[in-house]
């Protein structure tokens, strides 16, 4: 099945810093999503981005489908950005299920 690898596994930053999270996947996909899981466990959908670039406030994401990776950028980090960031991919075949990476745990220090 398709493999999804996220890096780095853990990241500790000072408030105000910028960060880049990476998601590599092993096969062509028609769906890539980024999620943020807050410390209470809620998963929030940040981006649906199978290709191209999107921006939402301080967050932006870029997926280069031909090279099988996606990047999530967080600028001017705030403590509320802390949590775990997951990417999830899905292939065209309906029999294929959504596959989640193991996540990047981000801790923003005040």
């Amino acid at each position: 099945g398709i493999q999804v690898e996220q890096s780095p596994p853990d990241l500790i930053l000072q408030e105000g810093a910028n960060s880049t999270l990476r998601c590599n996947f092993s096969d062509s996909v028609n769906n890539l999503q980024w999620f943020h899981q807050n410390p209470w466990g809620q998963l929030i959908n940040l981006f649906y981005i199978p290709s191209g670039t999107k921006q939402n406030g301080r967050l932006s994401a870029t997926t280069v489908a031909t090279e099988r990776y996606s990047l999530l950028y967080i600028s001017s980090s705030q403590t509320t950005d802390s949590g775990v960031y997951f990417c999830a991919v899905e292939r065209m075949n309906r029999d294929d299920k959504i596959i989640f990476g193991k996540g990047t745990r981000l801790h923003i220090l005040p």
Partner: protein
Amino acid sequence: DVKVTQSSRYLVKRTGEKVFLECVQDMDHENMFWYRQDPGLGLRLIYFSYDVKMKEKGDIPEGYSVSREKKERFSLILESASTNQTSMYLCASSQQSPSGANVLTFGAGSRLTVL
């Protein structure tokens, strides 16, 4: 706003009890999913449903069953709870995009402890 509601945020049950985890979505989504999340193992798919009264096994269906009698409600059932089912359970729903992709919306999660 799109909403997925899980009935219980925290539950504590005893081994052998029957456990119901309820999930309701108000977005008229066709597809619903149940995942469990464990440290070091990430999110694993238990069951999913693409239509009312329809269900499909995910990657780890053993020890679980589901019910989807109405479009908006997808229930996860643990027939006889065991300690290895202590976990965070996450429900999600999705409407497929024109390309066929499932764009997921998650509930807040239900943290189950089986003693």
